[in-house]
């Protein structure tokens, strides 16, 4: 199983750090990829993840109203909504993509989000590429 977590350099990345520092555990299939702000996340990055074998993609930004760049996370959420629509047109279940807003001290929420995505993949089966190749 492969899950890409696109994390912003502020709360997203720090919440993953905090999950580790606080002794949380989550599936090792979740691999973080850092971007400056979730506002930098482009639909093409999400598509690239699915095209290269991701089973799910999570986008993790700061709490709404707490974005280090004012409203990058709001822009990201809009794009995630658009991307979900695009994915379902491509025959990929929109539930494989999710936006999370997690504060930097909420390591437990990062771990929960990771587990949630894993259970979704377990329910939906392998992603489009993996399904076709195995």
């Amino acid at each position, binding site marked *: 199983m*492969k899950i*890409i977590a696109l994390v912003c*350099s502020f709360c997203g*990345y*720090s919440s*993953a*750090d*905090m*999950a*580790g*520092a606080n*002794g*949380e*555990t*989550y599936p*090792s299939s979740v*691999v*973080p*990829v*850092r*971007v*400056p*702000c979730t*506002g*930098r*996340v*482009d639909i*093409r*990055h999400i598509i*690239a*993840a699915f*095209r*290269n*074998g*991701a089973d799910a993609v999570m986008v993790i930004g700061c709490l709404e109203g*707490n974005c*280090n*760049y*004012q*409203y*990058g996370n709001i*822009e990201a959420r809009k*794009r995630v909504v658009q991307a979900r629509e695009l994915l379902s047109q491509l025959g990929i279940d929109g539930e494989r993509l999710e936006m999370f807003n997690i504060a930097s001290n909420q390591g437990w929420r990062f*771990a929960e989000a990771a587990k949630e995505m894993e259970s979704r993949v377990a329910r939906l089966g392998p992603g489009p*590429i*993996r399904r076709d*190749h195995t």
Partner: protein
Amino acid sequence: MRQPSPDGPHAPLIAPNGVAIFLCRCRGVVAGKLDMEVLRDELSSSPEVRTVDVLEDCCSAEDMDRMRLSLMSGEVDRFIVAGCSFKTSHDRFMHLAKDAGLDPSMVELCNIKEQCALVHPKKEATDKARIMIRASLRRSTMLQPVPSRRLEEVDKGIAIIGNGHSAVVAVREAIGLGHHVTVICPCDELVDDAHGEETITLEETGFERFRKQAGGALTITTSSVVTGISGVPGSFALAISTPLGETTVNAGAVIVAMDEAPVENPLRKMLMGDVIDQHQLETMLRSGMRPEGTVVMLAMDLSGESAFDPMSTHEAVHNALYLKSMSPRTQVMIITREVFALGQCEHGYRRAQEAGAVVIRTDKFPDIGKEGAITIKDLNLGHSITLRYDTIVIDSSTEIPDLQELASIIGIPLDARGRFRRPIAKLKPSSSLREGVFLCGTATERNLGIGPGLEARSSVVMASAMLQEEMVDDGDKAEVWPEKCSGCLTCVRLCPYSAPSIDQEGRALIDVSRCQGCGICVSACPSKALQMSSFRDDQIEEQIKASLGGLR
């Protein structure tokens, strides 16, 4: 100004000379979970990798020296540290790169500690670390030098835009710290209207005395407005319009210290009897007088809302404590929807209650009866109570000046109430959304909760600290590829910092002094005419691909 590369931001990547990888055992914390030797052997076989070293503790002076020596061999132009969080170690390894003569933008950090070793069992952790380091390696080989420019001469001057108490406090602090200060005051007189403090005004005595103390370090221009601001932190030029004509003020840092103007609280006309406001009460208390009999403080407006200004409950709590400590037998009641105790005020709130001040929570404006009776719906009791009072204290009201024009010129947005918006106060206290511009004054979003005087001093200290440092403009910024730009205004509308504009040829132009490198515009650009050096689309996509283990 930084020059974008002539090929545009989509220029072909410069091939790496070689990559050094340092694997940090983190004194056993990482090494206890990951098989470091296996990782080393596997990574050594990659063609770009020159050396892979397993070190005990990359943060220690000894290992930093080892890394420096290894990097100075001339074989590599970039390196990866696989160890702890980017958040804690980024600055340290940027400096290491500089010391070793490498470009600090070519440093890549891979978090195999918090995001891997600490959260997964042994085997899974090693597998994930392998993938994460390979993804970092992919990213590292694609990193490009970020153009940087060192400011040769930092202007130590500070320009203060202000109209009242906060500006006066800021001036004193800045002069005290040895800066040249220019005050740009929109009113015809700079007045310190705060009660109980020494005032300086442009009237002969006060102003002359303060100016003499400051020597030539202080210039005050009144009835002046800022019409433009250009340059970068450490070297700003402010265009000023004064009654004597246009002029330019040069300063390294800008402090915006606009205060709200006091206005009469509309409640005063409606209430009978002994009504004073919190300012008047504080002035009374400072001069040793105290109000008659039972004191009721109405920390709310007519709609029952106390939240129109959190500072008003601060003032009420502060004055209640002051009054109780002067006269413990005086009954003091604060009627409010909710006490906003920010920062240090939390202690004051507790002490006021310990001293016997009573806080009554209500969500409706009370009925004020005749002859000193007041009926309140007490939220805690769930029913109405009637109290007798002798003195009623209302909030001291203020009015936010019209800041629209100033805000758009400086490029810092206003909040819904029309005050300057702050970035996240916990991370960047006293900063504004524009680098090199600092905020204080009561016409600023309330986040710090330390009171206007301390906020003013804090902003000066932050500005002063910034000016003491070597000023390097080296952040990753958005870059335009003009041939691709169709001038659609998407970036102009989306940027939180007003960095993009459209030039005369109809192409986007990024003001690098305003750009903070969030990348919101880069992702939104429909023509893909914008890129960032360290977060290009191809870099992100390749890192994602490598993070998936190259399945395809």
